[in-house]
């Protein structure tokens, strides 16, 4: 199985887990990662710079029409939905909020599932709303691999629990084990 992209949805408690993920992945981690973190509409991109300084990979805000490439961790800009086109480029929209959120995890996940089908890994992490549950189901239905953060280990258990109530995930793991698993899956690619 060759995975071509990882999508991650995270809400409250996300800053900490994103810091851990971006600083733990090794230099030659190949699979591009695309993240929706719920943020206020007016937040700036300073925190992305901080993540980037501590990461072996290139952490950057996803840009409109940008081609998705390996070695990058892309983060959805505040106040826009982030979608993935079938030619593996990004689209941004200002459509109405979904699950009270813009960017919405469901919007990213559903478009990613269509673009990558069974070559996609979908991950739901800590958060206190149900965004991501519909999207993770679409990823599963399209044959992708689904990983949920063990709610007992999540700072906010609601979002992982909501995802688990929607589908049977392939893995339910604490954060450290998720990172370990991603590194293994990435190495199998070569």
């Amino acid at each position: 199985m060759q995975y071509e992209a990882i999508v991650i949805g995270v809400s409250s408690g996300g800053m900490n887990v994103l810091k851990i993920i971006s600083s733990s992945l090794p230099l030659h981690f190949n699979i591009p990662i695309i993240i929706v973190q719920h943020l206020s509409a007016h937040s700036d991109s300073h925190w992305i710079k901080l993540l980037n300084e501590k990461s072996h990979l290139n952490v950057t805000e996803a840009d409109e029409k940008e081609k998705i490439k390996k070695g990058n961790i892309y983060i959805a800009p505040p106040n826009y939905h982030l979608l993935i086109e079938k030619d593996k480029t990004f689209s941004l929209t200002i459509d109405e909020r979904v699950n009270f959120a813009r960017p919405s995890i469901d919007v990213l996940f559903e478009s990613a599932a269509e673009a990558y089908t069974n070559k996609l890994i979908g991950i739901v992490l800590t958060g206190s709303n149900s965004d991501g549950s519909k999207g993770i189901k679409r990823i599963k239905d399209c044959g992708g691999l689904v990983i949920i953060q063990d709610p007992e280990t999540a700072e906010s258990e609601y979002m992982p629990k909501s995802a688990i109530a929607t589908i049977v995930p392939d893995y339910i793991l604490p954060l450290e084990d998720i990172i370990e698993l991603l590194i293994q899956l990435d190495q199998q690619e070569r």
Partner: protein
Amino acid sequence: MRYKDTSDLEISLLLEAIFRKYGYDFREYSQAHIRRRIMNRMAVSGFEDVSQMQSKVLNDETFASELLQDLSITVTEMFRDPIFYKSLRENVIPILKTYPFIKIWHAGCATGEEAYSMAILLQEEGLYDRTTIYATDFNQMALNRAKDGIFSNKMIKEYTSNYQMAGGKESFSSYYTSNYDNVIMNQSLKKNIVWANHNLVTDSVFAEVNLILCRNVLIYFDKNLQNKVQTLFYNSLINGGVLCLGSKESLRFSDLYEQYSELDTKQRIFKKKY
């Protein structure tokens, strides 16, 4: 549910049908967005596939107009991105002050919030009386609402905060009157706004203007269509005229990038070279 493998083809045929029957052209829009809107409408209306829905679109004008509303995004705010309006005040107003008459084009104005924001800004800068604002959209329903200038009370708190962050000089409440759940924008703001139906994809240049604002419209278009619309803007601007795009929209990939200088790179404000 996983969509059928033929759904891309069916969507493309539906867009062709909409264009040929109704004249609205979505064929060069970003596909992931169009797919999302169409699939949502299909699910809500209980169709099994896009082809089934296409027959309804072709034969039922009411349904077709609902779908057109789905495909036309009217999400907007007063003083959306306040820092942009601040920059407009600081960097563009001084340029406008040098002209005896000013023409401004809000392309894709939706329900008009940004056109009213502009009218407020110009009034505060003493320029409104010599300005005409052309506010255009292809969505007639949205234009009608813009013309009415009636907005929900619920948004006023956010708009007031946007207005203040944008460097507003008065009390925001002096620009509207409250009426039950709504506010009505002052008549004095409306007097120099011309609301007009114009489709960026299929219509052409209609005026020579000093300033064009087209924010968060081009993100919905593919690269080819973006370039076409950029050419339309270029041909509508006077030399030295100013073009404002959305905070995530760039001229960098456009063929016309070299023809502009950057007034504010971060707020995406560009000046057409002489």
